[in-house]
């Protein structure tokens, strides 16, 4: 394990600049239908920097086209991949990956060199999102080549559609290491009493029926593989607190959080694990619609983030959890973090909204945001290291104190 890590690190260090430059160039040069990616880097003993390795392995068995249509399932060229636990590339299914958090997670994973099968209700938007994510991923500061994105149409509230998604995953990726049940409907912002019954039904069916159907199919897939990780995505209401103006959404999320507990044993019994990803407060229409920006701007500035920021936090942790045996609840906006944000609020003023007049200060385009500032994403990406360092420091401090006490106490007594 240390050897490949070392070689990878050195290769990355030497090739980083050139790889990124050539990646951008090739992104512009190649049309989406003919673009390609190296899938399995770990098994390619390339002595040359990675930027060049991509070109040398082009066209070999280790490459795969972006398969963005259902017809690609019939493609005889099956991608071969190293599935053992040490493999650096993982296979993810991300439902609802064409927008919002799902898209950001998919992008983050692709930038990590993973294979992602993202879904959307329409094939068109799934295909488009898969193509765009490959280009967008290059904009992330920690981009690594090798990622693949597939787009498949799926309505998570329909049992047949979800079963077909599992088949697509088998065909396109030869299974999946993790399944992120991200697809969710928020309904419209407004009084529950005035909500259209059809919208209420869509919210419940997408969030709860969809979550449960995906969980069932994922566990069946994982049972065959004897491994895998299932991720739910929580939301407002998951903690049981009231969610006025989006009552149906909150109730469905409260249900999802409970369901996570219910399927722990079952996931374990099939050799898999089930987790929850909590993205915190994302600047989405659901959150912002109908709110008084001028009044709430200070709060939004302190607590809210663009989807890519929690995604940069959650994706590496999700990857770590793929081989975990116990379920975890991964919270981006944990209570200590919220506390820290409020302590440091002067540095967060006028971040997203102008606090004087409530005007929006950010761009809706991911690319534009990355052009202007990538610090937030990098910081979240590196947060795992910081956490580890803090943990080591705490252990070191505790053991030092113990040792000191063992020396000092006898002499006092």
């Amino acid at each position, binding site marked *: 394990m240390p050897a490949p890590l070392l070689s990878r690190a050195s290769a990355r260090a030497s090739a980083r600049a050139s790889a990124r430059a050539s990646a951008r160039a090739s992104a512009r040069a190649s049309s989406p239908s003919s673009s390609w990616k190296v899938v399995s880097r770990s098994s390619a003993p390339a002595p040359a920097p990675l930027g060049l390795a991509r070109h040398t392995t082009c066209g070999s068995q280790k490459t795969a086209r972006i398969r963005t249509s259902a017809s690609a399932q019939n493609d005889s060229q099956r991608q071969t991949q190293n599935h053992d636990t040490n493999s650096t590339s993982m296979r993810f299914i991300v439902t609802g990956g064409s927008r919002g958090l799902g898209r950001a997670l998919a992008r983050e994973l692709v930038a990590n060199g993973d294979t992602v099968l993202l879904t959307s209700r329409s094939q068109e938007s799934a295909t488009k999102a898969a193509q765009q994510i490959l280009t967008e991923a290059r904009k992330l500061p920690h981009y690594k080549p090798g990622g693949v994105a597939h787009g498949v149409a799926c309505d998570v509230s329909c049992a047949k559609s979800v079963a077909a998604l599992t088949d697509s995953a088998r065909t396109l990726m030869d299974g999946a290491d993790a399944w992120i049940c991200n697809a969710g409907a928020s309904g419209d912002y407004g009084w*529950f009493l005035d909500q259209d019954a059809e919208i*209420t039904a869509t919210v419940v069916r997408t969030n709860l*029926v969809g979550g449960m159907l995906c969980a*069932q199919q994922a566990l069946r897939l994982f049972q065959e593989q004897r491994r895998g990780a299932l991720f739910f995505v929580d939301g407002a209401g998951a903690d049981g607190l009231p969610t006025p103006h989006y009552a*149906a959404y909150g109730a469905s999320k409260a249900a999802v959080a409970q369901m996570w507990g*219910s399927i*722990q044993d079952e996931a374990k019994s099939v050799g898999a694990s089930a987790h929850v990803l909590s993205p915190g407060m994302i600047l989405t229409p659901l959150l912002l619609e109908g709110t008084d920006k001028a009044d709430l701007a200070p709060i939004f500035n302190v607590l809210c983030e663009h989807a890519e920021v929690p995604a940069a936090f959650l994706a590496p942790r999700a990857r770590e959890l793929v081989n975990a045996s116990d379920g975890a609840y991964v919270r981006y906006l944990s209570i200590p973090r919220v506390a820290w944000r409020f302590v440091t609020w002067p540095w967060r003023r006028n971040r997203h909204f102008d606090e004087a007049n409530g005007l929006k200060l950010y761009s809706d385009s991911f690319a534009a945001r990355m052009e202007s500032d990538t610090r937030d994403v990098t910081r979240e990406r590196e947060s795992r290291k910081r956490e580890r360092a803090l943990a080591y420091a705490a252990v070191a401090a505790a053991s030092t104190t113990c040792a000191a006490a063992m020396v000092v106490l006898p002499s006092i007594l």
Partner: protein
Amino acid sequence: MEKASGGQQRACVWCASSSSSSSSEPAEPAEHPRDETGLDDSAPPQPSRSFGVVITGSTKGIGLAMARTHLALGDRVVINSRDADRVQASVAELTAEFGDDNVSGVAANVSLAQDAKLLAKEAAEFLGEIDVWVNNAGTNGYYYGSLLDTDTDIMSEIIETNLLGSMLCCREALAVMRDQEGGGVVFNMDGAGSSGSPTPRFAAYGATKAAIPQLTSSISAELKSLDIADKVSVHTLSPGMVTTDLLMAGADTKVSKFFINILAETPDKPAGFLVPRVRSLAAEAQEGARGMQRKPQKSVYIKFLTDVKAYSAMMRRVLLGENKDRYVPEDSYLPFL
């Protein structure tokens, strides 16, 4: 109108009070004798007026028991179920006992928007004013087992009946009640999973029930914002474990038999506990709506089987062997366990 139970006599007092005693006291008005209705001593003083009550899924189980208790206390009840035959049978049975004027039935599937609307409309026509609406309709598909083997149609049915059905009915009921002079109260039924604790053998049911208290609190918050919380209010009822088909379908493991014998009650017990409390909340809502006591109603969580009761029952079982083999025989080698 007489003064119904005071504000202080709310949830906590009721919850803490014991309901196990069966001795009846003749404190009730003569026309509502307690022994007939199965009320216990802890019940709050009952308003003498009659309420219009809708109970969804009330052709069997706790729903039917609650309907019976309401009727015995002088209320008028609309029975509901998906199945027209079952509705007819239940209505015929209750009519024979309580008279034609007091019972009606509507066959409607609460998970369908148009059915929920129809139920509200027909109930309002029969009752005049809907004072109480209980979202009791719920199912677990009569299936206990792993999620892997759960039929997807049953899964959707469970979620749509329990959660979507409660949502749609809440909306329809509140829409009728907010325009009524006397306002009204809506109750959602909780169940296993409502506390957030895992329900591995019935994941779908548990998830929907976990959503119920959260839904109630969200709607309550909205009613407050809409400034109609003094007229209409939403509450949660917890009947505890009831020996209905839903529960008994799961009496197939040692652990479930153990807990069913200790904690489960026949439907009339929780109904006798919940209904008087429902009625006194309804009376409070009436006062609020008619301007006698204009203040927002707080959402109340009425629990029959409180934690204290559950733990004490478990202790009595373990220490004294109480309630062993009460409903289902347990195969165990130890005298008490």
